[in-house]
């Protein structure tokens, strides 16, 4: 896994923790079993980051030049770890994690507020929408858990994103940009489905708008088989590590199609979800063993993202339906 992409090692952990948190909320009787696994993953991930440094979970090009803001931090890591800690604490409070989460959130907020625009780097002078929305979701849950108030930051980020980070032709949020907010890329399927889901915590209407646009621009169904493109027709982007290999002509992207499950599940788009499931069963080569299921055509992060799509809901609902604790 790490031989292909060290990021996937990290994201597989994140999606698994978020999934188990949702399962813990769904099945209170089995909560302690899920929490034990969650804690083990969080502790090991934090230990690896501490011992090996932030580059351990990043792609090699992170070392090509220094981060603009020093000391170097990656919002990719801070945002997802903060969201892991936050999700765990929604299931059940753990004092050690409260301190760890508060420190992460403070670091993220400080970086955003100390920059002229509220953006933070994941890679040197490279900011990712996916990472920002995960970080904002973690901040939102932190407000819910600890009675803090970052609504001004969330609103200013959202206003700026709508103004500067939207692709003109499609109305979709772009996937990456510089620390100053200059676009580096167009809208991307492997980003936007999860972004729309994350935005449900921040701005439900905008989130639904983004999902519907993504569905129109990227979602496809052919003879009952659903799939998703990585790029809309109005943007020409390269095949990369996020998109996975792209099937020519139909422009099927494994990365975007996998993440589309999360969008379709989060927005209750049952028709699209069932057509995606048909494709998964036909062409992703399921392997069932000892009561477990994985997909040979995918990988650890793909399986974890599919699990997340299958069980997501309770965590977000918990935060949205109740006022701050």
């Amino acid at each position: 896994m790490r031989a292909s992409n060290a990021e996937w090692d990290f994201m597989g952990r994140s999606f698994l923790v978020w999934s188990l948190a949702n399962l813990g909320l769904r099945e209170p009787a089995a909560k302690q079993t899920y929490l034990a696994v969650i804690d083990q993953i969080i502790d090991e991930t934090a230990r690896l980051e501490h011992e090996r440094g932030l580059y351990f979970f990043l792609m090699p090009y992170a070392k090509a030049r220094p981060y603009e803001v020093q000391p170097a931090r990656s919002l990719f890591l801070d945002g997802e770890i903060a969201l892991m800690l936050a999700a765990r604490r929604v299931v059940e409070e753990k004092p050690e994690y409260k301190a760890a989460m508060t420190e992460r959130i403070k670091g993220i907020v400080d970086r955003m507020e100390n920059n002229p625009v509220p953006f933070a780097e994941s890679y040197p002078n490279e900011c990712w929408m996916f990472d920002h929305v995960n970080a904002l979701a973690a901040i939102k849950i932190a407000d819910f858990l600890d009675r803090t108030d970052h609504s001004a930051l969330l609103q200013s980020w959202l206003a700026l994103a709508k103004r500067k980070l939207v692709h003109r032709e499609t109305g979709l949020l772009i996937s990456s940009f510089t620390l100053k907010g200059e676009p580096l890329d167009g809208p991307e399927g492997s980003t936007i489905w999860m972004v729309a889901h994350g935005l449900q915590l921040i701005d439900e209407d905008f989130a639904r708008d983004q999902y519907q646009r993504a569905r129109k621009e990227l979602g496809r169904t052919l003879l009952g088989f659903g799939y998703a493109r990585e790029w809309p027709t109005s943007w020409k982007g390269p095949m990369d590590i996020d998109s996975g290999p792209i099937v020519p002509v139909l422009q099927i992207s494994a990365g975007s199609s996998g993440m589309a499950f999360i969008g379709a599940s989060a927005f209750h788009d049952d028709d699209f979800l069932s057509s995606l499931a048909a494709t998964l069963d036909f062409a992703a080569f399921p392997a069932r063993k000892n009561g477990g299921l994985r997909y040979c055509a995918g990988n650890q992060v793909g399986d974890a993202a599919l699990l997340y799509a299958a069980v997501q809901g309770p965590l977000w609902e918990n935060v949205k339906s109740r006022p701050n604790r």
Partner: protein
Amino acid sequence: MNANYRQRWARLWHAEFCSPKDFLRRAAMIGVAFLVAQIAGLREYTSFLSGTVVWAAAGWKLTVFLGLLYLLLYFTIMLLVPILIIAAVVQHLLLRFFSRPKC
């Protein structure tokens, strides 16, 4: 394998081109090839579709080659084999119908 057995096997295997038996024979060959690929674990190599090398030692080229081979056999068995079997059955029935002596 004695000569007698080989002759019987050759007779059984022999089929006229595009005859029902020929269609079934081709379907069987594809089935056997797919079974061998399945038992050999080639299904794992389809991980190349998500840009993942199944084992670091396997390397990218071998993963793509074996993965593509499995894909080819899989889609052949899913799409072509049913057509071959249906064609064999339909042709067999038509041949029987048209070769029946007229009253």
